[in-house]
């Protein structure tokens, strides 16, 4: 019974990811791009969840780790012949190093983790509003530096010419890795300790849990996942600094909150549901045929709807669509398991 529940905690989000990916194989190529984006969003939101969901501390700064991951993977995997045109001022060793697809993703995760660790070392002492503002500060600084420092990237240019390797398979594998890591973490001793600090920081530290240490572990781990997601992102479409800034922060945070911030299931559901709505609206901004006519929304409708949806969910169901709980066992299954074990 207990094992079934634990298995479901991993399987439910994983099956949802696989289902989305399978759906992606059935649709046209243009729709498939939306499906791939959805899967990358799942990875970002799960990264957010690992820290925000388990610690209860708000972070507006995770998109900076996504950006750093995207920069790492983008610079290192761009063909050496293309680099001078897009990044004329790139530092020497970055110009001369070129790695393949998978190593670039691994490095993106590593750099994301390292950056999160460096940022987290001082910042994890903060909580509450101070933490929110400080992480927002990290986002501002990262955005500002990546935008103007041309030694470490394209600056204001766009990351074109990066091999577009993030297809359905790579995005799905990336999202599954994120889900698996988040699952293993939340079942681990560290995950439990961090959740204890979320429920009552004073009580947790009274039994010997280091609030600072546990938050730092989660922050670093979620930095790694966010970096990985950034790597996936840059292999999907040509990104620039503006794409990895406030709008992405808002929309991923909205996904987490709408789904339910305190469960892995909620994070994945939120990412999938909001991405689906968002993709539909993006398509409708170009005009889409539905039974009974053509929908043609003016561009910009997406954020209006997502913003309204987020406010609505917060008012009606502040703990998210899933109530912030993992998927419960279906009643019938639970009953049959119960009778089997008690017999």
């Amino acid at each position: 019974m207990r094992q079934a529940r634990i298995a479901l905690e991993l399987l439910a989000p994983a099956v949802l990811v696989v289902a989305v990916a399978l759906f992606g194989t059935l649709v046209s190529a243009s729709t498939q791009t939306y499906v791939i984006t959805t899967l990358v969003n799942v990875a970002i939101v799960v990264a957010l969840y690992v820290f925000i969901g388990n610690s209860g501390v708000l972070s507006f700064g995770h998109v900076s780790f996504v950006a750093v991951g995207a920069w790492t993977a983008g610079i290192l995997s761009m063909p050496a012949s293309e680099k001078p045109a897009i990044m004329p001022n790139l530092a020497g060793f970055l110009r001369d190093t070129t790695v393949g697809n998978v190593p670039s993703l691994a490095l993106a995760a590593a750099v994301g983790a390292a950056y999160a660790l460096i940022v987290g070392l001082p910042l994890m002492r903060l909580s509450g509003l101070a933490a929110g503002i400080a992480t927002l500060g990290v986002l501002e600084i990262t955005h500002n530096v990546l935008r103007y420092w041309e030694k470490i990237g394209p600056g204001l240019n766009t990351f074109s010419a990066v091999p577009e390797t993030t297809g359905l398979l790579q995005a799905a594998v990336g999202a599954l890795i994120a889900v698996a890591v988040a699952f293993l973490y939340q079942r681990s001793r560290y995950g439990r300790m961090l959740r204890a600090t979320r429920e009552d920081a004073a009580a947790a530290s009274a039994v010997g849990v280091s609030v600072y240490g546990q938050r730092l572990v989660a922050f670093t781990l979620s930095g790694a996942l966010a970096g990985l997601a950034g790597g996936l992102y840059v292999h999907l479409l040509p990104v620039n600094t503006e794409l990895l800034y406030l709008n992405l922060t808002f929309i991923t945070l909205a996904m987490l909150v709408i789904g339910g911030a305190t469960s892995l299931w909620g994070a994945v559901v939120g990412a999938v549901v909001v991405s689906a709505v968002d993709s539909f609206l993006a398509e409708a901004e170009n005009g889409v045929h539905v039974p009974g006519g053509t929908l043609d929304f003016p561009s910009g409708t997406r954020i209006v709807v997502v913003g309204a949806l987020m406010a609505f969910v917060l008012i009606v169901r502040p703990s998210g669509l899933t109530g912030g709980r993992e998927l419960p066992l279906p009643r019938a299954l639970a009953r049959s398991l119960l009778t089997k074990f008690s017999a």
Partner: protein
Amino acid sequence: MTLVGTFLGADWQTLADAFGLGGIYALMAVGIGLVFGVLRLVNFAYGQLVMAGAYALAFAYERGWPVWVGILLCFAVVVVLSVAMDWVVFRLLRSQSPAVMLVATFAVAFLLQSIALLWFKPLGKIAASLSSLNQPWTISGVDIRKISVVATLIAFGCLVALVVLLGRTSVGLHMRAAALDFRTARLLGVRANRVITSAVLISGLLAATVAVLMTVQTPLVTPDFALRDTILVLAGVVLGGMNRLISATLGGFAIGFAAGFLGGALPTDQSQYLPSFLFAAVILVLLIRPAGLFTRGSQQAVERV
């Protein structure tokens, strides 16, 4: 070190600009701080109130209406929007945790911004009815733009008026009591909705004032008008200390002054990194004094996000 050099060599115009911007940011800080005091709500969407006011001014300017009509329209729009925001969203969230409320205001901010994007298109509109204020006054051989002085004076005037309101009227007394301890204040007969509505009203009035002052220096009104300023002011408010209005105001002024001063004094190749400097300073201060720079004693913040 260039920074020291700029300190010594700063001209009067830069200083006056810095004071003007500090004053404007102080007004925004008061608007955010007042609402936080009674509602424990950090209003991320405050900048969008300013944006709406700026669009109202642009609307009036496009039609060639007199200046005072534009300003009146700006005040009307902002105050209505401010109260509507409270009624439609914040009132329903009052029992929620501060984190939920912060995320909700984040959503409202993006909602309003994208409505503006849909409605007015991304290119922006011009609100230049007060642009004559950009001309300089010459005081004993030194040129100073009028708007810098006007902004400083108006900000100062508003703050004095607010101090009088909070200190000498019964509504002010109620608001201070509610800010200190909302539940006890209610038990002692303070009418909650009246206090909240007046706080929201005043913060709306301040946002409208800020809109008028800001459009003088930045006449191009776009959907992300005042967004960057709001982020800076929020940082300043937390930096100063949210729990007391005076410390929040000082924090707002400090960050506005720093932004204006460094922005004017640094050469371009360094001033493009200005946000980094400012936020690095904010983070540094938060690490040393998480409860705020201008707070007294070891008061712990009440909110738990």
